[in-house]
């Protein structure tokens, strides 16, 4: 039971067997999280730094909780309020932290490829917690785990990823993962938010009509419009986007079968999802968050097993 990689930089680098191992391990950790005492001593001699150069609520809390449940020592670092504002480079910052004997780095950065760059230069294991518009591997893993929990497996299942595909690292990680695990994938959204050659690049379906996408899928993974990453006007207004691509109760009730609604958060209520959808029985958004802790425990556990005692 070993991963083929020393870091978790992206789903792209994983093999299907790695994904399977992570999901199976997470199942056992989910059981741990139901116990009266939810903490295990597994990583008690491992030190992990959470390096967040970009805002985050869920991912950061989830990683921190996972680390604590595994009894690892944790250090939290945020770019604001650190020496980054004095002009220290990423590599210098990390090397300084590592000289204090840290085994693993969990990292979020607004630049795509930042964790890959670090992996080349430092000996600690790196877990990508989201890099720019590239990948967000633990989100894709917890999405897959949640789908597997509801539908039994991923193979042959129809998953529609809906919304801002262009700027979404969640979409990219999900596409890689679902394809590797044999699911059928469709991306849907306005043409301006879907990369032009995505169909050929990933062998997936592209749909510009929301209703058709919902009719096709078993699970709809709805993404947030990432206004902070858009530097040009790609649709005229949020209201117009909501009219064409917002999912409401009436729409779900008009479908031939019940589908599951997922969202990586944070939700823009009334834009991509109406409240009566986000809070409905068909929504597994909060289960996704719950599963996130188990998935991150699994990833940290499996990567820690590859670490020699007393790093650098």
């Amino acid at each position, binding site marked *: *039971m*070993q991963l083929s990689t020393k870091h978790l930089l992206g789903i792209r680098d994983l093999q299907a067997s790695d994904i399977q191992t992570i999901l*199976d*391990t997470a199942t*056992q950790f989910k*059981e*741990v999280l139901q*116990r*009266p*005492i939810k*903490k*295990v*001593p*597994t*990583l008690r*001699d491992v030190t992990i730094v959470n390096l967040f150069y970009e805002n985050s609520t869920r991912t950061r809390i989830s990683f921190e909780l996972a680390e604590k449940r595994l009894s690892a020592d944790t250090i939290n670092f945020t770019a604001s309020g650190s020496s980054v504002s004095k002009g220290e480079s990423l590599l210098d910052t990390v090397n300084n932290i590592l000289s204090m004997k840290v085994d693993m780095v969990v990292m979020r950065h607004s630049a795509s490829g930042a964790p890959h760059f670090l992996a080349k230069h430092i000996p600690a294991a790196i877990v990508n917690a989201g890099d720019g518009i590239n990948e967000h591997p633990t989100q894709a893993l917890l999405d897959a785990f949640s789908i597997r929990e509801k539908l039994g497996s991923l193979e042959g299942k129809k998953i529609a990823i809906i919304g801002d595909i262009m700027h979404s690292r969640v979409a990219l990680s999900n596409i890689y993962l679902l394809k590797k695990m044999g699911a059928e994938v469709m991306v849907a959204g306005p043409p301006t938010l879907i990369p032009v050659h995505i169909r050929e690049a990933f062998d997936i379906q592209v749909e510009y009509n929301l209703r058709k996408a919902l009719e096709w899928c078993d699970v709809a993974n709805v993404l947030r419009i990432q206004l902070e990453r858009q530097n040009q006007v790609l649709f005229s207004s949020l209201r117009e986007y909501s009219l064409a691509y917002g999912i409401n109760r009436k729409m779900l009730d008009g479908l031939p079968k019940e589908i599951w609604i997922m969202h990586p958060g944070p939700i823009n209520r009334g834009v991509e999802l109406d409240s009566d959808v986000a809070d409905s029985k068909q929504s597994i958004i909060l289960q996704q968050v719950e599963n996130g802790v188990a998935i991150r425990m699994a990833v940290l*556990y*499996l990567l*820690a*097993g590859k*670490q*020699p*005692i007393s790093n650098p």
Partner: protein
Amino acid sequence: MKTILTEEQLGLTIQRLSHQLLENIIRYDDIAIIGIQPRGIFFSDRIVGQINQQIAPGRITYGKLDITFYRDDVRQGLHTLNQTDIPFSIENKTVILIDDVLYTGRTIRAALDALLAFGRPAKVELCVLIDRRFSREFPIQADYAGKFIDTIITQKVKVLWKERDGKDEVVLL
């Protein structure tokens, strides 16, 4: 390879231990049998099967415990995870832990820690099929043992089960 217990002897030993475990029980509600994953399960399945068939059908609370997360050697390589299944409270119960071979005591040490995550048992007892004396690395002893064996460190005791290995036998390698 030397046979320590034949299939027939193994059957008799399991029968004896099943009776011994129950000798001191006043109320069946107060005890829980918990097998230790992965190989202790084959033994505990037999014990519980024996109790259910012949002694006290349906009155034994039975669970399974995986101790991987509590091992002290994570950095020396990962072990395969197994299912933990304890769908009952162990609070104030007498828990009988079951494993196939007691050797260094490290597994039982981890099992005790793992068990406490589920509550505070009144008492914990240990039942093993084979007790390798004189090789303990922790002050841990069995309350019930099928057979005592004195071995040197280089020797290995292997318990074979029909369900997994095709035959019932205990051998010295």
